């Protein structure tokens, strides 16, 4: 009897539930039929909505999460010596590969000198910006040389923030870093990715004559987009003058520059820029894909395909550049270029040895 009662109650409950559910379903169906249609939600702002959305990252730009023994060791070394890297500050997508050592097991980092606060605010760069960055660390040249010495790398790239607050833009400090490196590790090949020192050509000469092997300074983009992409204190002519002066100061010096693609430049503008660079005896150019580092920076206008990057590489080599590194993930100091440039420098050394 109890079992029956229980069962009857269940049936009753189910039927009440069904009635209510059925009623509400019918009610709902009516409301949906009579209510606003899909077009209510699709407004003429659909184009704007899709415009506001970021382009999806294409598969060729997806990189590994950085990890591993070399990566951790590098991170610890840098922190203990109070050094910053542009790899971390600018959120480089290659950090896992370069720090991890890659196929050849050669860990590379690009050390950022003169602190991690830049006096300029460019629309593409996520390095911290400050009007008054901290004072220079007088131990930095020594510490940098010591750290690089302990790693055993044979090619190092040094880069720095802009220091418009310093009278010489930090040129003397950078030159000292190079000199210390050459003292501590004489066989080391040194590349410096230099600021423009507000166009102070004496400062450029000071750095270019300090003994470095490659002087790099990035144009970043084509002439038309300079004032949009870079801080207004930087411009095309000023940067080109820096590269010209560096070559003048030390004729054997390799000069190098980098361009970011995907910011809205046209093919003709890129070709014009490459022609200008060749005309000013710049030896190396690299092309990489611009990637939006944070939502406070420029959106990507275009994801250039690897095939297109290859075309720029071929064009560059045909135009007479000593070396062109071109690819979506290539950056100014991407490790792949180092080996080739190392070859060029060693070739040059051999030639001059034979002549002597």
């Amino acid at each position: 009897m109890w079992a029956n009662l229980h069962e009857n109650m269940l049936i009753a409950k189910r039927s009440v539930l069904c009635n209510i559910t059925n009623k509400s379903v019918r009610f709902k169906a009516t409301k949906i039929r009579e209510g606003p249609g899909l077009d209510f939600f699709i407004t003429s702002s659909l184009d704007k909505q899709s415009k506001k959305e970021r382009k999806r990252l294409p598969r060729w730009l997806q990189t590994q999460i950085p990890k591993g023994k070399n990566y951790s060791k590098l991170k610890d070394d840098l922190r203990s010596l109070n050094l910053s890297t542009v790899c971390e500050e600018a959120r480089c997508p290659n950090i896992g590969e370069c720090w991890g050592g890659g196929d050849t097991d050669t860990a590379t980092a690009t050390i950022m000198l003169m602190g991690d606060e830049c006096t300029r605010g460019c629309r593409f760069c996520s390095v911290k910006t400050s009007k008054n960055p901290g004072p220079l660390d007088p131990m930095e040249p020594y510490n940098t040389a010591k750290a690089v010495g302990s790693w055993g790398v044979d090619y190092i790239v040094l880069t720095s923030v802009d220091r418009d607050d310093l009278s010489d833009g930090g040129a003397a400090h950078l030159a000292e870093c190079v000199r210390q490196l050459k003292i501590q590790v004489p066989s080391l090949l040194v590349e410096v990715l230099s600021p423009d020192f507000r166009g102070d050509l004496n400062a450029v000469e000071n750095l270019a004559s300090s003994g470095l092997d490659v002087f790099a300074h990035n144009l970043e983009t084509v002439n038309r987009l300079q004032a949009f992409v870079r801080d207004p204190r930087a411009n095309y002519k000023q940067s080109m003058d820096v590269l010209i002066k560096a070559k003048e100061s030390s004729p054997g010096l390799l000069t190098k520059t980098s361009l970011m693609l995907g910011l809205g430049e046209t093919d003709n503008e890129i070709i014009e820029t490459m022609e200008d660079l060749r005309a000013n005896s710049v030896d190396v150019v690299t092309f990489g894909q611009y990637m939006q580092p944070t939502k406070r920076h420029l959106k990507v206008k275009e994801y250039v395909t690897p095939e297109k990057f290859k075309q720029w590489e071929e064009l560059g080599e045909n135009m007479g550049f000593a070396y062109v590194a071109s690819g979506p993930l290539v950056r100014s100091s991407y490790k792949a270029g180092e080996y080739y440039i190392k070859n060029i420098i060693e070739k040059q050394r051999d030639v001059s040895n034979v002549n002597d």
Partner: protein
Amino acid sequence: MSTGLLTATLRNYMRCLPLLKPSHCSRVVHCSSLVAPTRSRTTLFAPFKTVPSESSNHFQSMKRCLSDNSEKKTVKVQFIDRDGDSFIVDAKIGENLMKVAHQHDIDLEGACEGTLSCCTCHLVVHPDWYDQLGSEPCEDELDMLDMAYGLTDTSRLGCQVVVRENFEGLVVRIPPYEPQYT
């Protein structure tokens, strides 16, 4: 039991009702040919002649969006981006315009994060609103603005303009880029 179930069912149903409020990206006129060859204020903000204007449909639709809530936490602010497209957003009172733009995915940059060290959040305020912002630009802001492209008499840095209650209907323009060749 049935009452409880009915209430729950009705509550569920209410959640399914479409939102009848217009979305915050309301249908606004596309100002497609809004490239400013000169720094003329009227060109930058055409065809929005003056704001607020009782006669404009645009203003009517904005009025409809106003909530009755007396404790207003947000106000409607209009951003016109570099291409001339308009976005009316709910700006939180007390937030600066640069952050408001970022929160609503408007194409405005902010490289120095509001520390008066760059001019990437440069905005042109509608002339009718410039004197109602509640603050004048300080020396440091003017120094940074001096470097910006597309500078006008009513330019401000977005990070220095804090949203206030009277900002309902504010219109600001991200200036279109003017190439400078060197």
